[in-house]
């Protein structure tokens, strides 16, 4: 949802999400183009930019994946137009193949790459990746805001550095920065510069040797110059003492939360690549003890240890000996970890812990929305193929199929990986296998896996769950949708056409909300001894509900006919729709939660669950 405060006037103080603040920073920098692929916790950057692009007169697109998005931005930046792409940490894995060489070629217009890490995995189930290693490997200057105000300001600064030194710059956040809300004082919006020109220069844009070595040496000189110029002025020191704390990102806010500390000076490290050697040397000179507070890997700590060897060899350095390398930090965790060193009292939670132990409440995990087409598809496939099947999972809302009652996601590695992994399993095993992959994920990285499977002859069932939108991240368009991010109509790409062009012949397209259609299609597809693709099509019900609401249409609801509840027991256990409620012996459909897909009514004898016709305008 778009936050109108993003467009408020200069000087106004408003509440923005970290991601909205980054978008505002881009608008204050006059970007002419932005291209992204959505990924939590970065999505609101693109959502915000796409909402204002037309109005402010710059170009925005949701690209097919992060690599393409980055390339689009780099092309614009080569042509002298400021551009921004934003992605989640794993998005950088996808984009990296192009990011690393573009750091060598450099850019003309500013190019900012926002990468949102997700320690603890609030919305990522792959790894706890630390983007700062990419920064070091790729020699990409990296700024780390610690709150929403800085998220905006550092984005502007990133454009300044990028353009001055002709190099892409990373703004690295974590979930607690991207999804933190804070008061932000706004700067001036800058008119977008949208037109540029690509000037041929093979010595620069073609990384062949000896260009390569020359570009590499030039890149090294850029990094040294950035370290000299910005290393001095970008990082901040507060307080006086012989104990030092260095912190970055949101960890700095947790240190500040403790309050004033006697005899302690604190450094806020805003640029974590390149880290300024001069700044660190000046800071640690004369210290007796130093604590480095950073989430995930000891990137800063290792650097400081190396500097201390020359500058202050007797310095006692703490970091990962006190603080975890796993998960994300909290204010109480940071306080209690450093309390003995800075000589303050620890929080004592022993009493609270005892009380908390007495609390017994049911767990609440995320669940398919009422009316979700994925629930219907999983249910149908399981009915036909039974439990003894390898269920290949992929990235999208359908990961929720891992939970009961379905338990149909045996693994989930990365975007599109379900296909390659299943191909490998099938090459060495006779097990039945089903791949579940969503529409947006199919376009993102699923296509290479499917064409590979098709030409190398494995024969699993591939279920493409087409809900017509990139749903999990907030309903972004993809190549299969009728409208693009600028709201312009286009000819959507049909998944079945793509699949057919890969040489697959055994294809069925079904309505995801029709159980008998679904189940008979699965039966037919697996009967043939060839690769089968089922396109299970049904619009994301959350999106449908929103569209209906905006048009003043009420979706129908379903209810259980009095006296026939006994037929619905299996729905509670096997279908798990949040609208179907069991309280004591009563089973009923909560009318405010039923979104009218009607699939439940197909799973019980006729006349047990019936539709309450609405469908009319309010």
């Amino acid at each position, binding site marked *: 949802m778009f936050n109108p405060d993003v467009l408020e006037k200069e000087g106004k103080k408003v509440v923005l999400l970290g991601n909205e603040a980054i978008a505002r920073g881009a608008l204050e920098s006059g970007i002419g183009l932005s291209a992204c692929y959505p990924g939590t916790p970065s999505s609101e950057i693109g959502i915000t930019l796409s909402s204002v692009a037309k109005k402010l007169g710059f170009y925005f697109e949701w690209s097919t994946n992060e690599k393409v998005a980055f390339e689009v931005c780099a092309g614009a930046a080569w042509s002298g137009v400021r551009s921004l792409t934003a992605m989640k940490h794993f998005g950088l894995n996808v984009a990296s193949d192009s990011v690393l060489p573009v750091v060598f070629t450099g850019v003309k217009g500013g190019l900012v790459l926002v990468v949102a890490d997700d320690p603890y995995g609030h919305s990522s189930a792959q790894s706890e990746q630390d983007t700062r290693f990419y920064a070091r490997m790729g020699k990409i200057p990296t700024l780390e805001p610690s709150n929403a105000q800085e998220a905006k300001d550092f984005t502007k600064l990133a454009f300044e550095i990028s353009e001055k030194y002709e190099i892409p710059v990373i703004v690295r956040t974590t979930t607690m920065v991207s999804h*933190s809300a804070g008061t932000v004082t706004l700067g001036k919006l800058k008119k977008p510069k949208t037109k540029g020109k690509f000037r041929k220069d093979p010595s620069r844009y073609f990384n062949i040797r000896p260009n390569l070595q020359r570009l590499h040496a030039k890149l090294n000189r850029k990094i040294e110059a950035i370290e000299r110029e910005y290393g001095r002025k970008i990082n901040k020191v507060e307080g006086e003492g012989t104990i030092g704390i260095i912190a970055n990102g949101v960890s700095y806010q947790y240190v500040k939360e403790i309050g004033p500390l006697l005899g302690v000076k604190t450094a806020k490290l805003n640029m974590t690549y390149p880290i300024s050697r001069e700044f660190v040397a000046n800071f640690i000179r004369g210290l007796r003890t130093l604590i480095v507070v950073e989430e995930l890997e000891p990137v800063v700590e290792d650097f400081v240890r190396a500097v201390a060897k020359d500058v202050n060899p007797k310095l006692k350095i703490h970091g990962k000996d006190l603080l975890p390398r796993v998960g994300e930090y909290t204010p109480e965790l940071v306080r209690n970890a450093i309390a003995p060193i800075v000589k303050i009292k620890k929080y004592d939670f022993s009493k609270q812990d005892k009380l908390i132990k007495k609390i017994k409440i049911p767990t609440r995990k995320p669940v398919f929305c009422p009316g979700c087409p994925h629930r219907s598809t999983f249910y149908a496939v399981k009915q036909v193929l039974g439990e003894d099947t390898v269920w290949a999972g992929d990235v999208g809302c359908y990961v929720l199929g891992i939970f009961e009652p379905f338990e149909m996601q045996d693994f989930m590695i990365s975007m599109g990986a379900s296909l390659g992994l299943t191909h490998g399993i099938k090459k060495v095993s006779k097990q039945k296998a089903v791949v579940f992959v969503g529409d947006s994920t199919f376009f993102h990285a699923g296509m290479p896996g499917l064409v590979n499977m098709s030409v190398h002859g494995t024969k699993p069932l591939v279920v493409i769950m087409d809900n017509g939108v990139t749903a999990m991240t907030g309903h972004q368009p993809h190549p299969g949708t009728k409208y693009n991010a600028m709201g312009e109509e286009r000819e959507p790409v049909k998944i079945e056409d793509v699949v057919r062009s890969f040489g697959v012949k055994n294809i069925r397209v079904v309505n995801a909300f029709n159980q008998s259609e679904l189940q008979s299609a699965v039966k037919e597809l697996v009967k043939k001894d060839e690769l089968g693709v089922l396109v299970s099509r049904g619009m994301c019900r959350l999106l449908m509900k929103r569209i209906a609401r905006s048009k003043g249409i009420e979706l129908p609801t379903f209810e259980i006919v009095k006296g026939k509840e006994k037929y619905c027991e299996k729905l509670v256990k096997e279908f798990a729709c949040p609208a179907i409620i069991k309280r004591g012996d009563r089973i009923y459909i909560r009318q405010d939660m039923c979104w009218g897909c009607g699939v439940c009514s197909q799973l019980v004898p006729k006349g047990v669950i019936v539709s309450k016709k609405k469908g009319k305008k309010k």
Partner: protein
Amino acid sequence: MTFNILLTGVGGEGVLVTSVIIARAAVYEGYEISGTQLHGLAQRGGSIPTHLRIGKDKVHSPLIPRGQADLILGLEPIEAVRACYYASKDRTNFVIDTYPVKPVYANIRGEKYPSDRKIESMLKPFAKKYVFVDASNICEEKFGDPIYGNVMAVGVALSNGMLPLGRKSIIHAIKRTVRRGLDENLEAFRMGLEFKG
């Protein structure tokens, strides 16, 4: 001094919108705020605790330190109980919407949803004061949609002296924030102000 509000409920209940309303109201009154609004998968019927911290001066951590919530606005009863992690008897007030959303996994596993009395007894050791209000039900009866229960709960917190903000700035923030049913939201807020628990 920072005033810490934890809003919690089930994804889809409008927790985020409610937190934006309170945050905007605070900024209209000249306060600084910091907080969290987790988006993404957790919104799909999961539990979403949203932190909001209000201060005269700069507020640092976006997360409320454990045990330091001043107000827990529980838009679903067991989610209010889950939020006790952030509560302590000497400081935390609760407003709890008694409208239950039973987790589907509880159905599958046969886990019991606790009774109102049980919920009260679990909360008690963590609460300075607590108010139960059947806000979503009242709003469903009145407006045909339980969603307005959130704003009603904000009104209840305000009229019980549990939220240090002015009525006017909250009304102003509701007008800026809600996209549909403005009249219903304003009416629900007023009903909350007049609610006698």
